Structures are given as structure tokens and as C-alpha cells.
């Protein structure tokens, strides 16, 4: 199949449909709406349910209901809308039913703006909803990667009875790029045993997240956490660029990773031995490779389109063994490769330190830039 020039949101929608999406429930919000719009036409064409819900609360709970039937279901939204969905996500995690969430991240907090951002890292990677649960979080850096990760998200959700989130940012969602969308897959025919369908003469099934007996609830929590350990062991994905001989490594995901790659290439042209580690799964986080790199490199630069939310995960692995510096833009401002290159040069020029917090140094520098 040939590549076509396609917008990220539309591509993810079509990829989901071809991966066997059986029902979609959503609510319009910029910069995600093309995804919903595409499915509003395509799903009815294929005789599959599409509902524009009354709110994000409605949408996520429609997903919850449909997910309880064991079908492949999805919703999509953008940051403030995903915040509204947190209640439902916690219930879905607590009920152990699979679903796919697409978050096309925009500037915040609050209503913020509709520009690309990565400020949802904490609410998606480190919870947001109440209780102990984790979501699998995939962070593509191109339209093609978003397409590829969409099919993977459904497989992972099914495999682990978990929520798989594709965390785009507004630029991946809105950008048009050549991409190849895989051919149509048949719908899942096997319905898992746990899925409700009417007793049909058998034992009744109950899907709930309530358990008033704390010790029993703890057993359930333990099951979720051991499953997460399994996910951590099996599902880490990342892409490394120029890591083999790197003295310095930039760590960045999604669009920030992609922009950083341009800066890394420019630095390489100047003879700087620098590489890029781009986590594709930000949850589970690629701890192992980061730990290996900690032993071989001189210093790290973390680049994000937020105030350093992933930075904390990097610091947890590096544990002060090597200097970590940070560069970020917030509120929907997208960094230029030149800015990242400047930060790379600053890192290489030194002096390097493991003292203090990199965020504080960055904030002081940023104050000079943005006034």
C-alpha cells in the first residue's frame, strides 16, 4: 500500500478502525476533533457504533460500558477533556477492561490554548485518576509512528486487560505527513470469558470496581501491580540515535524528541559525540537503557514541552550519578532545533554539576528569554 499525505488525527482514526475498532465514543475538542470527525463518517459506513457523547464524562463511560463487552473500543480527547475522563479511566482500570485512549495534548493548565504541548505527561503517566493503577502510554514522534502505535495499543490493551494511551501532542495530531496505513483487519471474533453478554443460561458475570473488603481490594491492587511489572518487563520500547559512541545524550519523547534529533544531528556535524534517547513507551519507562547510558555518558539533557515532567523519571534512574540538565518550553510553545542546539552546546561547554535541581537552573535561564 502506498503512502499518502495525511493528518495525524485522521491517520490515527483510520488506523484504529483498520485495527478492528468496534465502537468509538468521543466529544469534540481542539486539537483532536479531526479524529472524531473522521470516525463519524467511517464508522457508520462500516456499520460500527459511533456516538458523539454529551460530554467527556459521557464518552469515557460509554467506552467503559462497551469495553465490558470485550470489544475493541476507543475514545480520544485533548488535555482538559482527558482531565474530565480521569474518573472513568480509574473505574476502567479498576474493572480491568481494555480500552484505547488517544490524548492529543495541548497547552495548559486550565483552558490553556490549542497549541502543541506535553503537559499531560504527569496526568497520563503518573495517574490522574484515583487509586493505584498505571496506563500503558505510547508517545509517537511522527504520523507514521502514530499509525503504527495505534494497532499496537489495541493489542497491548487486550493482552493486559489494561488502558493503552496514545499520547500525541497537537503537532503530531495536526501535522500532515506521508504515512502508510495498514490494511483493514477483521474484527475480533473471540469474546473473552469475563465479558458481559447476558448469561445465556450460564453463570452470571459481574464487572465492577467496587470492593468494600479492604484485604480483598488489596489483592486486586496487587494483581494490577504485578501485571504492571510484567508490562515493565516485556513492553518497553524506545528509539536510540547515535548512542553507541555518545558522550552526551538528549532524552526527549514525541515532538520534543523529534526536534531534538535535528539538534543532535547538527551537533554531530560539529563533531560533538551526542545521541538521542527517545522513549516510545513513556510508561513503562525505558529505565534499563537509561541506566546503561548513565554508566557510559558524561551528561544528559532532557528536553520536553512542559516544565520537566519526564525529567523526574530520568532523575530517578540517573540518581545523581551523572549531571542532568533540562530544557523545556511550556504553555504550547514549541522549541526550535536551534534552541536545543544552544542547550547542547551549553552542556558540552560546561561546567557540569550534579548539585541543585536542573529545573531551577532552566527556569532562571528561561526568565531571561521570555522576560
Amino acid at each position, binding site marked *: 500500500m502506498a503512502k499518502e499525505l495525511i493528518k495525524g488525527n485522521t491517520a490515527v482514526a483510520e488506523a484504529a478502525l483498520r485495527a478492528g475498532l468496534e465502537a468509538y465514543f468521543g466529544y469534540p475538542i481542539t486539537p483532536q476533533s479531526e479524529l472524531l470527525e473522521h470516525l463519524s463518517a467511517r464508522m457508520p459506513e462500516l456499520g460500527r457504533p459511533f456516538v458523539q457523547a454529551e460530554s467527556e464524562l459521557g464518552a469515557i*463511560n460509554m467506552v467503559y*460500558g*462497551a*469495553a465490558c*463487552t470485550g470489544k475493541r473500543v476507543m475514545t480520544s480527547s485533548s488535555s482538559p477533556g482527558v482531565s474530565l475522563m480521569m474518573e472513568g479511566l480509574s473505574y476502567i482500570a479498576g474493572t480491568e477492561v481494555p480500552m484505547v485512549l488517544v490524548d492529543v495534548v495541548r497547552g495548559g493548565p486550565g483552558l490553556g490554548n490549542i497549541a502543541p504541548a506535553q503537559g499531560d505527561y504527569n496526568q497520563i503517566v503518573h495517574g490522574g485518576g484515583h487509586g493505584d493503577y498505571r496506563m500503558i502510554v505510547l508517545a509517537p514522534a511522527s504520523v507514521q509512528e502514530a499509525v503504527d502505535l495505534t494497532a499496537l495499543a489495541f493489542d497491548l490493551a487486550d493482552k493486559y486487560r489494561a488502558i493503552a494511551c496514545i499520547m500525541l501532542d497537537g503537532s503530531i495530531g495536526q501535522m500532515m505527513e506521508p504515512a502508510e496505513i495498514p490494511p483493514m483487519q477483521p474484527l475480533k471474533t473471540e469474546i473473552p470469558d469475563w465479558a*458481559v453478554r447476558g448469561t445465556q443460561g450460564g453463570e452470571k458475570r459481574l464487572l465492577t470496581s467496587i470492593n468494600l473488603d479492604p484485604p480483598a481490594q488489596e489483592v486486586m491492587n496487587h494483581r494490577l501491580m504485578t501485571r504492571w511489572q510484567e508490562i515493565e518487563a516485556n513492553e518497553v520500547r524506545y528509539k536510540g540515535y547515535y548512542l553507541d559512541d555518545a558522550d552526551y545524550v538528549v532524552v526527549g519523547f514525541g515532538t520534543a524528541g523529534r526536534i531534538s534529533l535535528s539538534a543532535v544531528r547538527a551537533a554531530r556535524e560539529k563533531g560533538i559525540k551526542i545521541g538521542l534517547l527517545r522513549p516510545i513507551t513513556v510508561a513503562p519507562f525505558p529505565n534499563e537503557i537509561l541506566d546503561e547510558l548513565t554508566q557510559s555518558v558524561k551528561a544528559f539533557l532532557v528536553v520536553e514541552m512542559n516544565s520537566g515532567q519526564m525529567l523526574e523519571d530520568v532523575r530517578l534512574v540517573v540518581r545523581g550519578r551523572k549531571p542532568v540538565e533540562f530544557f523545556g518550553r511550556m504553555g504550547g510553545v514549541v522549541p526550535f532545533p536551534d534552541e536545543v542546539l544552544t542547550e547542547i552546546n551549553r552542556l558540552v561547554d560546561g561546567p557540569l554539576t550534579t548539585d541543585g535541581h536542573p529545573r531551577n537552573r532552566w527556569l532562571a535561564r528561561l526568565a531571561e528569554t521570555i522576560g
Partner: protein
Amino acid sequence: MVVTDVPTKLVYDRPAALDPRVTHYCPGCTHGVAHRLVAEVLQEMGEVENTIGVASVGCSVFAYNYFDIDFVEAAHGRAPAMATGIKRVLPERTVFTYQGDGDLASIGMGEVVGAASRGENITIMFINNATYGMTGGQMAPTTLPGQVTSSSPTGRDVDRQGHPIQTSELLATLEGSAYIVRRSLHNAREIRRAKKAIRTAFEVQKQGLGFSLVEMLSNCPTNWGMTAVESRDWIEERMLTYYPLGDYKVSPAVAEIKV
């Protein structure tokens, strides 16, 4: 006296669709009656094995324990959305929610209005007892003017705390609503009428005619601070005036249904 010769007639038996366990409901509470009616109707329709129930949050949070029916448990107020999701992917199943007034008419008003306006082909059992039962009898969206609750200790002051919501009247204005009626569970005659309405509501769904809801005026002896008998009188004397029984929406197609 030898009683074995007296001819016996079975006047009530627990429907098989109702689990034989003792419920957690307070003595005198009408949840048990409502559960029984739902079980009887689904059984009479032969729909028990083809049904998926959606429990809500409130005293009936554990409703799923009492039915021999596949069940899911929704977040507070979101049962109509969850039912929408299920019904859309399994249109041949009978899908119903069982919700109280705090769940449906307060936190879940958006979801129920959305479902009704879309004409979702689901059925809602709406239990209105004018209070939040599970959390200890606080003021509900349906609490009557002047009614004393644990969060309106001097009686609901409508100037300060607003007016009770007449849910059936409200939902009846929506085009997607096919069958919206209010019944009561305070005496045998009204219970029989409620059962007939529940049957009609499920028939509406079975025939694909749209959104159906049966509001049932119910009691809460514990939180109202009354005996069961007093609470039934209170429904009759106080609730019926603010919440008149009747058929608020019967679409032309539904009017053809004979049960």
C-alpha cells in the same frame, strides 16, 4: 386444628431471576419491591438470560448481587452512558440501568438527558425517594420544599437551596424519549401499576422504540426517621402532590403496545 386439608394457593413466589439471598436494604425499604418487579417482568418476557444490567451508586450499588443477570457497576451518575456503550455494541441485548434520584437527577443529569435525547434504546428504573439514602439522608435534587434532611436540617429552603427537580416531566420534553412514566410503590395497587409500566418500558426497548424510563416514588424509612408504614403514608400525602403519578411521554408507537 388440622391445616393440611386446607387447599393452598401460591400467591407469591420469589422469581428465579432474583437471587435467594437476604438483601442489605433496610426493613420496609421499597428497593426490594422494585427489584422483584424488574425480575418478574424480565422473567415473564423470557429476557433474563439476554439482559445486561447497569447498577449505579447509592443504596442500590449492590443491586447486581440480587439478580441472576449479567451486571456491570457504573460510576456515580454515569449509568446511562455505560448502558449506551453496551447497547450500541450489543443491540440485541436488553440493557437497563437501576438508579436513584441522587445518582440520576443530580450528578447524572447530563448522562440521562444525553441518553434520552439520543433516543438510546435502553430502559431506566428510576427510584425517587427524595433523599440520598446511602450517604446518610442528605438533601437530594428531589427533596421536597421544607423537607428536613441531614444537609437541610431546618427544612429545604427553596430560596436558598433551590427547587426539587421533576425528572419525568423534564425528560418527557425530549423527542428521543419514547416512554416516560411516574408510578409509586407505596401500596399494592400502585405496585401493580408500576409492574405494568416496567413491562411496557422493556417492551419499548425490545421493539426498538427508543428511550424508556419508569420513575418509582419510593421511601427511605431510615433516613426519613419514620416507620415503614408512616413512610408509605408520607409518599401518598407529601410526594404525590409534588410528583403526580402519570404517563408523561407515550410516543404514538408505544401507545400501540398492549401488555
